[in-house]
């Protein structure tokens, strides 16, 4: 008896501990920092349900505990008093929860519609998901691999996938939408506050304090090996910064240095630069070598082969590797391909 209560109490203490334990400033309470105009509505309904849940849970557990204590069997020959079913109580217990869940349903559905109806004068960004990354195309033709959005302005993402299902999720904004091949889905949000600095996620040098002012874009529909590697940084920029950034975006650095950046954002999840084989062949020593491919037997790794491999990866597949690469047509600019080739030349 004491053991049972102790076990129960220990478990409840643990639950309270995780609920209130400090998680850094990034997280306040159950949900992450609310960073879009939609977050407030979601959190309100979340908390509304949560408080009722606490109430019901405590009610059930308290009744259980009290009955165990009060009606503990004293002897093996104990008699029990007959308890009659109470129709009135049962009817109450049908009607009251039905009304309550209908209230919860209406609250959730009403706010959901505000997620779905895009306001006028939105800033539209095209997003393409692929295994395993994202490209974002801006109205001026600039292509970016991380998501940068203007602050305090409704942004609409028009999304499609190049291969399998993906899902666009920014926890801080409370938005999520599956991304489907051969179909366009959309999601909108408005992030009022600019973020402080730009960091790549998954950077082991990040400390908790530098994490505080960043937002992460996750893929939440399982899409294969590097599903968890599709995290991208989301940066919210004030108007002037955003304009400058957008201008920079259309400029392409065609040097090996620029190629390295393109490699890190678009190629690194499958290819390495240091000889370790990934999902695709490593780039170290690739330039100028003779490649064993199918169909076709053998080709030299020159400008034509590299370009073809990027824009039509299924044409000549390196032996020993699957035909798994995404088609980068429309996701990469000619200048970037030139830069990649320059970068490849440096990987002896």
């Amino acid at each position, binding site marked *: 008896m004491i053991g049972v209560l102790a076990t129960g109490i220990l478990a409840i203490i643990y639950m309270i501990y995780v609920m209130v334990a400090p998680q850094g400033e990034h997280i306040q309470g159950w949900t992450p920092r609310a960073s879009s105009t939609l977050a407030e509505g979601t959190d309100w309904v979340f908390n509304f349900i949560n408080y009722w849940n606490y109430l019901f849970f405590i009610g059930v557990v308290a009744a259980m505990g009290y009955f165990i204590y009060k009606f503990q069997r004293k002897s093996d020959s104990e008699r029990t*008093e007959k308890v009659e079913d109470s129709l009135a109580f*049962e009817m109450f217990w*049908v009607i009251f929860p039905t009304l309550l869940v209908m209230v919860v349903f209406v609250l959730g559905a009403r706010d959901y519609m505000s997620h779905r109806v895009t306001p006028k004068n939105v800033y539209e960004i095209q997003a393409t998901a692929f295994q395993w990354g994202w490209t974002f195309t801006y109205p001026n033709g600039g292509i970016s691999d991380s998501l940068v959005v203007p602050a305090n302005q409704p942004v609409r993402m028009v999304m499609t996938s190049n291969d*399998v299902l993906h899902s666009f999720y920014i926890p801080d904004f409370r938005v999520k939408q*599956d991304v489907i091949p051969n179909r366009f889905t959309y999601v909108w949000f408005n992030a009022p506050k600019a973020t402080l600095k730009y960091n790549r996620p998954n950077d082991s040098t990040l400390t908790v304090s530098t994490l505080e002012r960043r937002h992460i874009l996750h893929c939440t529909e399982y899409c294969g090996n590097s599903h968890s590697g599709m995290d991208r940084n989301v940066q919210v920029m004030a108007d002037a910064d955003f304009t400058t950034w957008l201008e920079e975006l259309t400029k392409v650095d065609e040097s090996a240095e620029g190629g390295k950046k393109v490699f890190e954002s678009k190629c690194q999840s499958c290819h390495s630069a240091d000889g370790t084989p990934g999902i695709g062949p490593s780039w170290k020593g690739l330039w100028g070598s003779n490649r064993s491919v199918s169909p076709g037997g053998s080709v030299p790794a020159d400008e034509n082969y590299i370009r073809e491999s990027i824009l039509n990866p299924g044409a000549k597949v390196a032996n020993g590797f699957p035909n798994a690469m995404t088609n980068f047509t429309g996701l990469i600019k000619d200048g970037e391909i030139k830069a990649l080739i320059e970068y490849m030349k440096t990987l002896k």
Partner: protein
Amino acid sequence: MIEPGQTMPAIEHHYLNAEKGIKSWLTTVDHKRIGIMYLISVALFFAVGGLLAVFVRLELLTPGRTIMDAAMYNRVFSAHGIVMVFLFIIPSIPASLGNFLLPIMIGAKDVAFPRLNLASFYIYWAGGILGIIGMLSGAVDTGWTFYAPYSTTTTTVVWMTLAVFVAGFSSILTGLNFVVTIHKMRAPGMTWTRLPLFLWGIYATAIIQVLATPVIGITMLLLMMEKLIGIGIFDPKLGGDPVLYQHFFWFYSHPAVYIMILPAMGVVSELMATFSRQKIFGYKAIALSSMAIALVSFLVWGHHMFVAGQSEVAAIIFSAITYLVGVPTGIKVISWVGTMYKGSISLRAPMIYAQMFLFLFTIGGLTGIMLGSLNVDVHLHDTYYVVAHFHYVMMGGTVIAFLGGLHYWWPKMTGKMYNESLAKWAAGLIFIGFNVTFFTQFIMGSQGMPRRYYDYVPEYAHLHAFSTYGSWILGLGLLIAFICFIHSLFKGEQVGADPWGGTTLEWLTTSPPDAHNFKRVPLVTRNPYDYDAAYDDLLGDGMGDGASRTPTVTPTKA
């Protein structure tokens, strides 16, 4: 009369020694032996699935690579899900406890189609073997949902989908057998309102099994054809629709959630009545709510797809209907708690499991309310919140009830009592370990940690580590529970017919039961939890061996 502490003399003839040799088991048509064979099989698959879970949690102990690479991790979590869902939790209670107890509890000699019952067992194993081949030959890395077009274009899923297809037939045939048995083979006097609540749970489950399982069979068949000959149903490159796959899949798999939980609810009803020595508060409400859940379960599949690109109107309708499932579930919880009121509560291990079930299942249910809300679900969908929610329902619900039921009916099945203090230690560790493992995941999920992630950002490192430590405590608890059962087989005390003072029919026959269940067909004259009528038995010599039992069940001619 036998003095307390003295062991009972072993019963001469029962189903375990009626025939000898391994062949007599493998060709048996006795529902009790088939139940035991299912029990051993599901325990085996539970061990496999559990071991895979340990590897999953171990990999997630730290961010980045811990013990395996991403490709291996994806295969391990997929295998964990597939084995647990299709080979363990769906058949767990109905096929093992259900098979063993259903005919006894209605006073029948066997199920309606004993040979079909044996065939179901072999079909189940055929599915199991195909699944093992699937795991060893290249392995599936799609998760247990096999979402297209990933499953049809990228990986080898044919063995595994074939396994699910075949195992589905076992489920359909078992369900069919149970429906017919309950309808046609009840003993004289066993009216529908005298049916024990465990059987109401099994009955509702059987109906879902018969109606829903063919859908997954057809879906798996389509998936195989898509993969092998490219018919273009799901793959957009061939003109198909991947969202259509999700509709097909969840049209089965949502009702399947109730295949998993309804029998567990039935078990808990039995435990609550016996260990409170009180008739179930609102018997009819529990029986009817099982049927209501079975019915509504077919209408809510779309709540798995709120962000999948279905129309807003569809999402709103599915959300509304989803909330209606919560009502019959809430009725059950209140009835169980009400049963304890003015009862005579004995905290033996099975009752501890029943209390754990109430605690954990309430959390599972209430967090389901959260996930049914459209705007909140947008945030929580495909995060660890969902992972925690279904583990609270499936493991905190079904597995805990299964363990409780197993302790409760173990003496009936084997004639031996388990070691009480060992069982309580196991229960305590399982409870603590479970909460540390999965409650942590509610927090992680609501903070935005997506599921099926090999690697994660540093914010979640602390909570992931906690969750992994919890899995070790949980694993230890389950290991002790297993040892407890094995220990009982060798060292357990002999028990009489009714060690708990239970009032349903199975406690009238010997432990272990006779090969034909009862010497004579029983005549049922009272409700299953009528402790008033059964008072004299309970107040007998306290040994519960049925020696002083007054004939509340009048024997008739066989």
